[in-house]
């Protein structure tokens, strides 16, 4: 008994160390690359870091439609003699830190604008900015022809949002498969799943910063995600199952793991938002709907992978065994299925899908940040609950519905409220049909 407990401790300390090592190995190489962004980018990064003292800033983003404009000089000056300038970075962002609240004159240097993108007509330049209670003042200069967007028909906006929603929903579905399979086979509600999503995106960024070509970085990152899933089950979850831990303590352990992983990633990656290679993509027009190339690629990739996973579950022996374990682990074990092996595979496949979903999420948001998984986790929960906890196909349908809901709701709602609708619908579904769309009643409680 004692020896067993001791072995568990050793294994346990091992896993925490290994996870740290893992993140470290993947990211140590990226640190030099992270250490030298341009001056304006580092200023923006500092502001995103958590628990930072408030700085007074004037900031904005310079875009033509959705295409950012880089290298434009903007100057802020005050009557007290203060003057500072900033240049827009590759995402079109600019930030000027000012010493005190007051009135500032913000001037865009039109000579630094690209020749084909002049300042829109009627745009005041210079602009007077007066600080109120807020410590960040946004200044938007309209450039190029982006004003035309407002006149489009409702139908085309709806079509565009629907395609974006499908793309988002399918990437959610990818990440939801792992969560749902793990819940189905072990009963664990895994709060650390969001960090597996972040891990995929962060390791892709680290690998490509290390010099891997994009395709290789993607493949290796997905494999690393799978390895991390294997490691988690080997070092943590399987020993806990052996101890006969109840579900609620395991859920709280997963929260601890989520916190630890999130801050390990923050520790190595920092609080900045970074872009993956070719995060900027041209807008394509497909069947009259304009859609960015990345969104389209993401949609196709997730669709293909999801179909592959569905075939895996329906047609192969492994899939059949997985469904048997999800249905009744004891019966599955009695019929000669190696339950632990199936669960291990579920962890590996689920984590690989989460990593892939994380990469697509990084292109969709866009940007890689240490808390990106935390942001998507509740959407995954919403999708999984909507479809029915523990049912894989329910999770797929639920996730797509959540994706559509989130994107289509932006037609009427402010963009910063777009996740509220999906969460509210999840609560309503629990009120009226707690087993979800495809769930069975006896699972509910």
């Amino acid at each position, binding site marked *: 008994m004692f020896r067993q407990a001791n072995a568990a401790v050793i294994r346990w300390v091992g896993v925490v160390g290994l996870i740290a090592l893992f993140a470290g190995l993947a990211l140590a190489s990226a640190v030099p690359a992270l250490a030298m962004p341009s001056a304006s980018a580092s200023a923006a990064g500092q502001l995103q870091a958590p628990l930072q003292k408030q700085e007074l800033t004037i900031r904005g983003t310079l875009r033509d439609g959705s295409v950012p404009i880089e290298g434009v000089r903007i100057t802020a000056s005050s009557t007290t003699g203060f003057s500072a300038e900033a240049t827009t970075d590759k995402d079109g962002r600019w930030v000027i830190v000012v010493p005190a609240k007051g009135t500032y004159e913000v001037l865009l240097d039109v000579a630094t604008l690209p020749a084909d993108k002049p300042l829109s007509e009627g745009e005041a330049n210079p602009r007077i900015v007066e600080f109120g209670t807020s410590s960040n003042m946004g200044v938007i200069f309209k450039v190029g022809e982006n004003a035309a967007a407002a006149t489009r028909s409702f139908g085309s906006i709806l079509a565009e949002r629907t395609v974006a929603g499908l793309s988002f929903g399918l990437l959610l579905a990818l990440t939801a498969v792992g969560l749902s399979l793990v819940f189905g086979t072990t009963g664990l509600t895994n709060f650390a799943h969001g960090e597996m999503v972040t891990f995929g995106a962060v390791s892709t960024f680290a690998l490509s910063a290390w010099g891997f070509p994009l395709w290789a970085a993607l493949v290796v990152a997905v494999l690393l995600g799978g390895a991390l899933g294997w490691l988690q089950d080997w070092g943590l979850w399987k020993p806990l199952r052996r101890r006969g831990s109840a579900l609620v303590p395991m859920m709280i352990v997963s929260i601890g793991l989520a916190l630890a992983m999130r801050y390990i990633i923050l520790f190595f990656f920092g609080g900045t938002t970074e872009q993956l290679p070719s995060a900027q993509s041209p807008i394509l027009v497909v069947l009259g709907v304009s859609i960015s190339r990345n969104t389209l690629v993401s949609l196709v990739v997730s669709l293909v992978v999801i179909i592959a996973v569905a075939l895996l579950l329906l047609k192969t022996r492994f899939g059949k065994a997985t469904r048997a374990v999800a249905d009744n682990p004891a019966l599955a074990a009695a019929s000669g299925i190696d339950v632990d092996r199936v669960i291990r595979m579920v962890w590996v496949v689920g984590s690989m899908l989460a990593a892939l979903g994380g990469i697509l999420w990084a292109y969709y948001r866009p940007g890689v940040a240490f808390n990106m998984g935390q942001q998507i986790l509740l959407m995954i929960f919403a999708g999984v609950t909507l479809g029915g906890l523990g049912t894989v196909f329910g999770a797929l349908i639920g996730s797509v519905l959540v994706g559509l809901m989130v994107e289509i709701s932006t037609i009427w709602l402010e963009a910063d409220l777009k996740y509220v609708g999906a*969460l509210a619908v999840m609560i309503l579904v629990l009120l009226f049909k707690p087993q979800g769309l495809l769930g069975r009643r006896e699972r509910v409680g």
Partner: protein
Amino acid sequence: MDFAAIFTNALTEIVSPITASYALAALGLAVHFGYAGLLNFGQAGFMAVGAYGFSISTLTFGAPLPVALLVALVASVLFALILGIPTLRLRADYLAIVTIAAAEIVRYIVTTNSLTNVTGSANGLATFERGFYALSPFPPGDYPVGPLNFNDRSLWVTLVAWGIVLLCAAIVWALMRSPWGRVLKGIREDENAVLSLGKNVFVYKMEALVIGGLFGSLAGILFTLPTGAVQPANYGSELTFFLWTALLLGGMATVFGSVLGAMIFWVVLSLTQGILLGLIEAGYITFLSSAQAGQLRYILVGVALMLLMIFRPQGILGNKKELAFS
């Protein structure tokens, strides 16, 4: 390294009103989870409801202190009812997901730009605390207590905060000795057994949810009073998880466990920060930046939460025989 300053800082954390508000919110979680077995992962939402209920009624409607307090408490009762009605009949993990989702909904709503004139969006609200400090009996000045330095404001808010914590702890202690508390613990152990005795389990659970939520909302108000400012970014799911860590550290089914847990949580954070920064300044540690030292502490919080749950789920003060896990 200045050990005297590091220890004084740690001592300040023990009595700070922020620690008191953590203790109070964790006490609410003790009622929810430790005594009733309800997995509330949305305590940050209750705190936000309290803080915003108080500050919005003061600033937007000019309500006096007692009215603002009442509004905050009523708002948190409503929030508990909205959360409880759909989920209390379902299995424990549904409540967990719904509460965390509801807390995030609250945070999104107080952050959105479309309500800036009411909630102040991402910048939050400030200067709603005057009514509270106007009640202070202490004339302006400095009040040193041992190595700790208070001024009239901080002394007043510290005394009130810990007074409320003691009062609420006494209420919980009395409630849990009462027949009501015994039924609640019975529900935690075996819901069906209690149901078969003819008790209305749903009502008991709902009462527990409301009481713990009230503590959470009071804690949310206390949390804002020292600085007189409320910012939505403080009420994310991480706050809830820190409260859980404090609760599990002290012992989830104990009255003073949450207080002890909150104190240890803040003292350890303060000590590790002080020592790490001291070592960095003195040049002993060169591989960490001071921002990374801050992040390292939260890695430790996560690892501590896992280890606690695995090796000592009853916490420091808890009794292993009285465990809420089924």
